[in-house]
């Protein structure tokens, strides 16, 4: 099933930001989940006063998750106080129904309210009231979609989160931050030299990354709100692969100051560097387990690049991957139970997941040049970079491999995605 959501780009054009539409990530859904809950989202009363229709954003969010089937509401408008005709919605196949309203406030802002119903039980099961500006229509829609998603699936929604990625176009590299649906892209850093390995701080306020602006890889920590950044590691040799500790105080990094690439710990302000690993080969791509107990990393100590883990407090490294001759880029799911990584099989590099309890491995993609997997903060989807038609694109796949999406930017290479954390617990 293929469906191009062009409404997203149209929204940006209507807002008068035609130049942004050029750099917009457009999302194509290339696969959907098997068990999808049918939901009807009616148009909200009063929403036509704003250029970007609120409910089209809510519907797109829920559809993209692969967990909902949108029931055609055929232009019906309901506000949160309209008594729903439950038998009618049931006959249309809806298990859930959402309705709401948007009203202008005297100060120029808006108030949006909505109510969510269980059609089977014929009862309201949730709702929300939010005040916002016209510039916050999309953010409001994402909050509502998050509420609906959480009520109906029991898991937190990721529609209000942000993603970071690097866009390369004609000798220019730009580190961008966008909403999880690819909208609202904002440049955080532009450079003539490469930028790789962005990593979100656990509070979502800072990014650590590697920039080559000094003709060598140097690690920076960048505060997104202020644009202020500092060097976190610039030792003799290469400095790369930053990964935040779960408390946001330290970075696991890779340095070559003592020879080959090895793991070190450094405070986020760049002070107090200590060595974590000692091997004769390459140790790189460190990643903390969510409980902060282990560092997962890639090492060629056994002859080929494989994934290992080692206690942060010290102790022997334990090999995790055994199948194949190239398993790299370990990334832990937020609950720490699943490991995503890139595996090479017959010249193809694909995203795979391992259930850490059973050590069962499942390859999730059918592309050939996958890189940089990154879990959504609710653990349902994995964002990664791949290549389609000779061009770098971002793609997302659900951890069961069923839901697939592709995010691309016109006439540019997109790479190095990193999915940001939930902004408030």
């Amino acid at each position, binding site marked *: 099933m293929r469906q191009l959501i062009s409404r997203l780009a149209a929204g940006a054009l209507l807002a008068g930001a035609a130049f942004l539409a050029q750099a917009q990530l457009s999302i194509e859904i290339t696969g959907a989940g098997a068990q999808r809950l049918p939901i009807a989202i009616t148009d909200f009363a009063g929403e036509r006063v704003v250029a970007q229709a609120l409910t089209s954003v809510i519907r797109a969010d829920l559809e993209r998750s692969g967990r909902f089937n949108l029931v055609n509401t055929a232009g019906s408008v309901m506000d949160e106080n309209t008594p729903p005709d439950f038998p009618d919605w049931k006959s249309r196949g809806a298990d859930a129904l959402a309705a709401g309203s948007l009203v202008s406030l005297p100060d120029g802002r808006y108030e949006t309210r909505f109510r969510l119903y269980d059609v089977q039980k014929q009862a309201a099961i949730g709702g929300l009231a939010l005040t916002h500006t016209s510039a916050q229509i999309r953010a409001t829609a994402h909050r509502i979609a998050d509420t609906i998603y959480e009520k109906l699936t029991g898991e937190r929604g990721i529609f209000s989160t942000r993603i970071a990625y690097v866009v390369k176009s004609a000798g220019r590299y730009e580190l961008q931050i966008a909403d999880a649906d690819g909208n609202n892209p904002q440049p955080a850093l532009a450079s003539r030299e490469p930028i790789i*390995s962005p990593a979100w701080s656990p509070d979502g306020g800072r990014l650590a990354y590697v920039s080559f602006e000094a003709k*060598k*890889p140097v690690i920076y920590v960048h505060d997104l709100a202020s644009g202020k950044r500092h060097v976190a590691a610039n030792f*003799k040799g290469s400095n790369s692969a930053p990964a935040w500790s779960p408390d946001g105080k330290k970075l696991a990094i890779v340095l*070559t100051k003592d020879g080959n690439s090895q793991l070190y710990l450094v405070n986020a302000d760049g002070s107090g560097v200590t060595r974590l690993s000692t091997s004769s080969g390459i140790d790189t791509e460190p990643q903390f387990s969510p409980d902060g107990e282990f560092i997962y990393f890639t090492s060629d100590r056994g002859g080929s690049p494989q994934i290992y883990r080692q206690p942060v407090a010290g102790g022997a490294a334990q090999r995790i991957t055994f199948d194949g001759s190239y398993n790299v880029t370990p990334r832990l799911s937020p609950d720490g139970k699943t490991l995503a990584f*890139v595996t090479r099989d017959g010249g193809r590099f694909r995203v795979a997941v391992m259930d850490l309890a059973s050590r069962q491995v499942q390859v999730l993609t059918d592309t050939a040049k996958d890189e*940089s997997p990154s879990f959504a903060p609710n653990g349902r989807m994995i964002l990664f970079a791949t290549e389609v038609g000779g061009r770098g694109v971002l793609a997302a796949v659900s951890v069961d491999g069923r839901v697939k999406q592709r995010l691309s930017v016109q006439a540019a290479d997109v790479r190095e995605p990193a999915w940001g954390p939930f902004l408030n617990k």
Partner: protein
Amino acid sequence: MRTPLLTASLLTLALLVGCGSQPPAPEQAGAGVEDRTPGAVTTPGVTPVTAGQPNAYDIAALKDPKSPLSKRSIYFDFDSYVVKDEYQTLLNHHAQFLIKNPQMKMLIQGNADERGSREYNLALGQKRAEAIKKALMLLGVKEAQLESVSLGEEKPVCTESTESCWAQNRRGDMLYSGEF
């Protein structure tokens, strides 16, 4: 045939000066000539210079396209981090330059082809840069003059997905002070 005559007359003059102006030194007990380390005979050397021609290891040679120092790239085989023998002569020229110009520093940038993880490729490029650094140190270059870094797969000179293109990207480049 004037040189030997001139040397002989200078020697005579020195002997005459020595005898005439200095009182004889007092004898020192036990200092037999057989105990002394024999002094080496030194002959002053003369290096011919043609005006307007830079020395082979002059800083100006770095920019001379005819100098071997203008060659800055070392290529590696697939999945290999060993400097091939064919580069020993080139590395020797660069080593001599660094030894004769101790104020000069070299940045060695290792590269890798595009296949696989960017960070792992960064580590592979580092292995290539390290191999060049070690080879230069074996030729007598001080470690303080050398820095090996990696650009991984980020700065390819060739961007097609073919073996001949990847081969050009499995490379180490040598940059001198002022070039990085």
